[in-house]
């Protein structure tokens, strides 16, 4: 399974792998909001946590359809399904590879982009923490959506429509942590709920994704 993770990371980093696309999109999106809203520091500071979270969500979405579609095209997915690895493990490794190549760079970049949106001082740490806890759920949910749409030609849009509503709870609590952090309020409740959602998706969705893949490979 480590070999699968290593292969996916290698492929993402090589030409045409799409590494950095999500990050560049995130940067541009945040810059556009800053330009669009204008130089109103107080307004930007108020909307910064929400914008930074929505941007991370959309950037995450960009690379989801690659998770299984490429492996399906070249036949690797069928061969992996007949390999001695459990399909649940394969799905988990795929989600982990997606998180490392897409989610983690977003987490690291978000505080820097917070500067552009005039995020208040105490908010930086909580934005980082909320994204660090929340983005794994985005990758796992996205992997489930990718498994659902793997057999479809041009399933990318359908994938977005399926996955975005599933992202809502993570977005609500993630942005709430960042907002409360920025305003200096107690963050414990939304932080625990966010962590709970992530733990729940990590525990349950690999099984659902594997079951869906089995049906789609038939």
């Amino acid at each position, binding site marked *: 399974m480590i070999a*699968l993770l290593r292969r996916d990371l290698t492929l993402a980093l090589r030409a045409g792998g799409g590494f950095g696309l999500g990050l560049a999109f995130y940067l541009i999106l945040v810059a556009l909001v800053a330009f669009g809203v204008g130089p109103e520091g107080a307004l930007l500071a108020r909307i910064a946590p929400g914008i930074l979270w929505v941007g991370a969500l959309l950037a995450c979405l960009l690379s989801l359809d690659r998770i299984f579609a490429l492996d399906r095209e*070249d036949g690797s997915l069928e*061969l992996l399904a*007949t390999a*001695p690895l459990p399909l649940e493990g394969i799905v988990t490794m795929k989600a982990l590879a997606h998180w490392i190549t897409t989610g983690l760079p977003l987490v690291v970049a978000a505080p820097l982009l917070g500067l552009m949106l005039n995020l208040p001082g105490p908010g930086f740490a909580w934005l980082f923490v909320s994204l660090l806890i929340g983005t794994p759920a985005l990758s796992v949910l996205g992997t489930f959506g990718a498994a659902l749409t793997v057999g479809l030609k041009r399933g990318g849009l359908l994938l977005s429509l399926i996955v975005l509503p599933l992202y809502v709870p993570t977005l609500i609590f993630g942005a709430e942590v960042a907002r409360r952090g920025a305003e200096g309020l107690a963050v414990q409740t939304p932080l625990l709920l966010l962590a709970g959602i992530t733990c729940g998706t990590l525990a349950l969705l690999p099984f659902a994704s594997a079951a869906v893949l089995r049906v789609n490979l038939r």
Partner: protein
Amino acid sequence: MDMRVKDLCVARGGVALLEGVSFTLAPGQALILRGPNGSGKTTLLRCLAGLQDPRGGEIGFDRELAAYGAHADGLKAQMSVTENLTFWAAVHGLSDIAPALAAFDLEALRDRQAGMLSAGQKRRLGLARMMVTGRALWLLDEPTVSLDAASVALFAEAVRAHLAGGGMAVIATHIDLGLPEAAVLDLGPLKARAEMDDFDDAFGGAFL
């Protein structure tokens, strides 16, 4: 361990394609599947590989023993020949890819990116993948597509070596592989009579 298949019925898209498929394969034996296009060779192989469930009948062997070689080779264009083979070996818990490279004459190409290979070279790499699975039963779907005569001979040699080592193989093919010892199963006469119920099931009754 013998491979027993008894009275197997396979379906694609809800419509039965083959019924009454029965054969037994002992270690060291190979079976050639023949039949016109669309007769169900691929579907039968996918069933044997465990990628889909049969409609009926019994498959009496452990599917963990089977390695499946499909039309698509499962190669990554951005990775080298060695990296591709090493990956599939690692997935199957093995690490030695040298015999597979040698058997399919890929040593000179070992550092070439898979995307730069010709169709025949890719196919050879895909077949070399079967060797690094370390599995006893090879299920091969049209393995000789885009291979030249010399490569077909290499492939036949590899299959013979695999059989000599106690392996088994089920191969769907149209051409003569030069394996006279292999049994031949003609799927033509096993074509399922498509029943009206099948169509109703497959299309939710709205089709007819």
